[in-house]
């Protein structure tokens, strides 16, 4: 049970469920593989034939047009057939169970499931179910589960950092915002640690931090100005609408004043610091437009790199 559930007996990646527990070698191999895929997008024909004849099912139990699109583009650039399924969770709750849905789609000769689900652990449950029913040849890629993990986002963020900063082992990285509810933050923190980033900071008000956050190997800052001092990379997190007013935060205005990334606050970071955001951004709430569109921002390159990273992940899984 303690074996990392995404690896097979030979230690090869079979599914991508979380970045936790993956070795530096595996993470680096994915990033290395993504490099040549980045070039494919610049060709006349933006496609390679690796996944010809394979069926990739985008299984989205939680809506996200943007994430689904990036996976769809990645799969199509690998020549796979892509089937998009948006499964409304409320109708799923009334009728078919999650595993019934999976069984049905598996019977349609799926080769890969890209899964987005509101519950932490759902992609793992699917992978485990496929293994238990003798269908472990079907690969599972986690496209975001609850608050647990968003491994391809974490990987594309690492790709971006490596692209601009080369060496992870000299960096100070700050993750800013709603860590409590963020699967992105968890994946980022695991990957940053594994890749040897010596100082990972987390900046947020106490209401947006999980109880055990310090155990994840990060330095916690409540004061953003303190936390941004001398950092090389600022990774902003998205603040969901429903969290902006209520018991977690009093108002978007107050949040922006104390935790929004403005040019003034960014000046506390290193002069060559880069600013990242997983999108979609809430301008004027977690990030000032002047920063989002400014010289330090690498938010759009993140999106481009994201396609290459997802192509690398899919081709590494499907061919093993």
């Amino acid at each position, binding site marked *: 049970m303690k074996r990392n559930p995404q690896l097979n007996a030979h230690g090869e990646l079979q599914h991508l469920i979380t970045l936790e527990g993956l070795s530096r070698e595996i993470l680096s191999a994915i990033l290395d593989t993504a490099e040549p895929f980045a070039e494919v997008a610049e060709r006349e024909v933006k496609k390679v034939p690796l996944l010809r004849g394979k069926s990739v099912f985008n299984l989205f139990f939680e809506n996200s047009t943007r994430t689904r699109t990036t996976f769809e583009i990645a799969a199509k650039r690998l020549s796979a057939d892509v089937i998009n399924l948006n499964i409304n969770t409320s109708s799923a709750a009334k009728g078919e169970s999650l595993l019934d849905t999976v069984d049905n789609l598996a019977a349609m000769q799926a080769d890969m499931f890209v899964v987005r689900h509101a519950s932490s652990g759902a992609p793992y*449950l699917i992978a485990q179910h496929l293994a238990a029913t003798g269908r472990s040849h079907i690969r599972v890629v986690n496209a975001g589960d609850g608050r647990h993990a968003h491994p391809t986002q974490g990987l594309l963020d690492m790709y971006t950092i490596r692209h601009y900063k080369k060496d992870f082992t000299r960096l100070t990285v700050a993750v800013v915002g709603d860590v409590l509810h963020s699967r992105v933050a968890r994946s980022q923190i695991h990957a940053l640690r594994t890749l040897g980033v010596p100082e990972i900071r987390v900046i947020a008000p106490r209401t947006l931090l999980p109880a055990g956050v310090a155990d*994840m190997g990060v330095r916690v800052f409540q004061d953003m100005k303190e936390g941004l001092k001398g950092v090389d990379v600022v990774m902003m997190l998205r603040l969901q609408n429903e969290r902006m007013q209520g018991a977690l935060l009093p108002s978007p205005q107050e949040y922006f004043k104390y935790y929004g990334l403005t040019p003034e606050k960014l000046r506390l970071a290193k002069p060559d610091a880069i600013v990242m955001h997983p999108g979609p951004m809430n301008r004027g709430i977690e990030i000032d437009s002047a920063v989002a569109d400014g010289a330090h921002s690498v938010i759009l390159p993140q999106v481009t790199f994201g396609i290459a990273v997802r192509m690398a992940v899919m081709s590494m899984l499907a061919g093993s």
Partner: protein
Amino acid sequence: MKIHIKNGHVIDPANGIDRAADVFIAKGKIVGVTGGNPRGDGGTAPAGFEANATIDATGCIVCPGLVDLSARLREPGFEYRATLESEMAAAAAGGITSLACPPDTDPPLDEPGLVEMLTHRARRPEFSHVYPVGALTLKLEGKRLTEMAELAEAGCVAFGQANTPVLDTQVLMRAMQYAATFGFSVWLQAQDPYLAKNGVAHDGEISARLGLAGIPVVAETIALATLLHLARETGVRLHLTRISSADGIEMIAAARASGIAVTCDVAVHHLHLCDQDIGFFNPHARFDPPLRSLRDRDALRAGLASGAIDALCSDHTPVDDDAKQAPFDEAEPGATGLELLLPLTLKWAAEMKLPLATALARVTADPARILGIGAGTLAVGSAADVCVFDLRAPCRIGRETLKSQGKNTPFLGQDHHDLRGRVRCTLIEGHLAYDGAFV
């Protein structure tokens, strides 16, 4: 029917017996426990006793049948999950001869007719004695009181809310006052519903890492403070069910020291598992209250040993596969427990190096005292509810071996748990309710 249980080692914590002895049963009652002299002779039968049946308990422990403070039988309302027949067979196979069932049936046990039907259905010689805990409020909604006196006449031994809280503290106080009027005890779980809202796991490192919504320990301690203050104010006999934290144990000990009449129990799974056992979202490690930290687990183990926690229960909760095969936060909490109570009690005792008599007291005499029933003893004249078990025989928990309809347990099919203690036979009022090999 006269039964002679010979050559066994009798442990009867209620009467301080822990020696080789024979047990004599007639007309469903204990008529003698004798023997254990230095010569190692068998016991001498009471005058005129001629056995119709003899049980050879060589190499086995003979103890009072176990008393379980919480076993969900799923009747009425959830018969697809379990039936009285399946769960009673499981109880007997687990050596349990008396059990209390919480009121969270469908409909809840909030009117005398339902309770009478349940106790009537359960009245069969091979069935364990069933002691319903009546609902404290109608439909467990926490708004209106139930007819407690009527329910008591129908067979309820206490009143509670299962895992459903009473939000309105005024209603809670009045329910306690009303119960105190009749001398009924009130059984409640201490968990603040607001702090536990949406939570599915202990609020700590594991839940942070797995991205599971947390239930902090203060959810327990705050609710405990409320319940303990109300108990002092109303003078009701309060029993706190399923304590989960080290801080909770300390608060209860302090309340006791200040003279509040309070008892508490812990679920057997919480003695052996902690939040780390969630592993990769194992839905079988989802419990209510949640499995807490290793430190809390160790405090529970020590608290039960010292008597700070009065009793140990199975918290038997059969859940069908469909309700467990779901993402962790959608899976139903709870585990099947009737057939695991004894082996898990023995495992705890062995790991804590406790005298067997102390350990068995927590599942026999102590819970019987909380229930206010004359069970959990081998005293002459008491009902012949007896469990005979082999302390060292390995006990494997498999889907096919479990008699309970609930196959949901984190201990399923795992030899490395090294569970020991196999029930050889269970007698209920002298009736052979379970025969696990010989007679």
